[in-house]
């Protein structure tokens, strides 16, 4: 007796592929290691010599996300473009002809993996920050209490960073679905993330500068890490992560539409 394929079996198939593909676990490990290592290095190199030293301890602690997101992007791109590289996609779409189901299953598995790795990475960073920062002048006497997940803004920064990584993953998956080639897709995703800050730095017109920071997926999305001086930010924390979510949604819609319309 034949059963119609249901979403659960697509999910199971994607999970098996992700679990058994060579790079997945190494890349997830790399997400954790780069995020924690870069965060700890930045924290170790930052000093707060006096009160009001203009540093945001949460931002310093979670600076590793700046680099960890690149690994997440690579992982997300390989999740689908790897199938095009090997021709596996033909088999996948034969087994599950509903293409949106395939993409949704991939997105679900990717998000779950990134959420787990991101949570470990962020917790590791926060722990490193709690150990390192007080010795570098970030003391309660100077207005910097110990980083704590019981504190609202700190929790927002930490949980928001995990969410940020998950959204970067979806952005990468959507773009890779549309582009299909690994190298080109990685280039586009990294370009999208990292090119905006370069352009922004080059734009001295304050009007343009502000607008670029508001629409760039990286600078807007990372606003979620801010715990101080929110009024001075070009975009608020939740609005900022919303901008990144819009980018990710757009990429997933474009990828899904192209997957639906095109030949493999």
């Amino acid at each position, binding site marked *: 007796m034949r059963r119609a394929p249901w979403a659960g079996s697509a999910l199971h198939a994607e999970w098996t592929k992700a679990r058994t593909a060579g790079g997945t676990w190494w890349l997830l490990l790399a997400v954790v290691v780069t995020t924690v290592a870069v965060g700890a*290095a930045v924290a170790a*190199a930052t000093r707060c010599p006096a009160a009001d*030293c*203009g540093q945001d301890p949460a931002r310093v602690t979670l600076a590793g996300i700046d680099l960890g997101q690149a690994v997440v992007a690579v992982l997300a791109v390989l999740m689908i473009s790897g199938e095009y590289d090997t021709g596996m996609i033909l088999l996948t779409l034969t087994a599950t002809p509903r293409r949106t189901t395939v993409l949704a299953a991939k997105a679900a598995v990717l998000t779950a993996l990134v959420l787990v790795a991101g949570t470990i990475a962020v917790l590791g960073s926060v722990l490193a920050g709690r150990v390192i920062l007080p010795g570098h*002048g970030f003391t309660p006497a100077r207005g910097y209490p110990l980083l704590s997940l019981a504190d609202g803004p700190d929790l927002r920064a930490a949980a928001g960073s995990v969410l940020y990584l998950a959204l970067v993953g979806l952005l990468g998956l959507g773009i890779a679905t549309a582009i299909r080639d690994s190298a080109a897709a990685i*280039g586009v995703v990294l370009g999208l993330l990292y*090119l905006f800050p370069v352009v922004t*730095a*080059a734009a001295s*017109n304050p009007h343009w500068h502000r607008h670029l920071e508001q629409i760039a997926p990286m600078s807007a999305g990372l606003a979620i890490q801010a715990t101080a001086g929110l009024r001075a930010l070009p975009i608020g924390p939740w609005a900022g992560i919303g901008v990144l979510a819009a980018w990710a949604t757009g990429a997933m819609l474009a990828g899904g539409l192209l997957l639906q319309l095109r030949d493999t």
Partner: protein
Amino acid sequence: VTVTAYRSRLREGPYGFADLLHAEWTKFRTVRGWVIAVAAAALAVVVFALVPSQQGSCNVSGCAGPVGPGGEQVSDSFYFVHQPLAGNGSITARVTSLTGQIPRLTNGAGTRPGLVPWAKAGIMIKASTSQGSAYAAMTVTGSHGVRMQYDFTQDVAGLPGAVTAASPRWLRLTRSGDTITGYDSADGTRWAQVGTATLAGLPSTAQVGLFATSPPYLQTSASEASISGGPSAATGAFGDVGLTWRGGAWAGLNVGGGTDGVPAGTLGFSRGAGTFTITGSGDIAPAVAGGAGIGVTIAQSLAGTFAGLIILAVVGAMFITAEYRRHMIRVTLTAAPHRGRVLAAKAVVIGTVAFAAGLVSAAIAVVLGQRVLRGNGAYVYPASALTQVRVIVGTAAVLAVAAVVVVIVLPYLLAVAAPVLPLGPTDWLLRLSPAAAFAVQQTLVQYPQVTNTYIPFYGYYPLAPWAGLAVLGGWAALALGLAVFLLRRRDA
């Protein structure tokens, strides 16, 4: 019936390296997407230069400052109490104190007592009182001891230590023709020569006198990423001013005429019984870009390098991955079994293509970009033709190597473009990582005698231009070596 077997008109192997290059070039030029991508990379470099990104007010008010005897941009603002000296002669003075006022940055406006490291008070022989004219000076400084400085870029250390009433400093300048010799002394009897300056074309009648000045106060945040500051003022007290000629009347002049930010009435001089007290603000030094400067460099018009870099890196990666994806690699390696040579041919072809695209686009960007910046009123620091050629060729080389190896993007971003890292790690990143190559776009010189935020964000790199490029070359060699090793060991 006779059947003639098909014979390819192609020459039989083995094929030389030139054939391999020809094969790889054919592969590159016949994939339309790659050719378009390289064109797009070149276009990106040019477009970024032409987009009006940097605004300024130079075309309204004019802000090209004075130019020194060496043709370089200089700051030349100070309070000068002077009189003419015809022919040869010597001036001696005792500096008994140097105090100053710096802006109160926190807790509101106003000033507080304080001295910037390169605040200056001393004696000077200058060609004229116009800005940028040749000079030689002996000066005490805020925290760099006695210095002999001349013609803006030259700086020689004399007696160390701060000046106080208990330990004053005696300074002397002697003119003999075009040569000026500087001396210092702690007691006014035992003199030591600090240095000599040859000021070409010093007129026979020069202006000689006492001066004081104080460069802007800068305060960098702990991460060195944000800078605040404001003008400062320094007051020098002089006694026992001695001249070897029958001196005339002293005239006070605020050279440069600027008083911006300094409270009105601060600048000037007063004269007591054999003493002078002079307060000045500004600097006598080469003009620098960045926190203490006003302008941008020609590297500003090469902001698109980064966009071009990403595109070329992708094309470079696809140049080999596409072979695996299409299984072309088996044909390639059958035709040319020497795998190392195949990789070398690929690297040469993609590197040459990227270099050519980079050369054309960087040349257009530098030449036109400067015009756009100036048209917008931004002040662009002058760079010699040779420096501009180096920037263009160097940028093309960075793009060429980047097409071969990919991993240049992230360190550059972390260190230069959006400096999230503090200065220490940034410095190391730009010494060791492939992003060190961006030093090749540097046109500015770091002057120890000018306090400034010499950070990559403003175009000051820790390595010399070609040394930075060499670091990238080393990484490229390493990556290619690893690739050859793996390609030889693995199945195709």
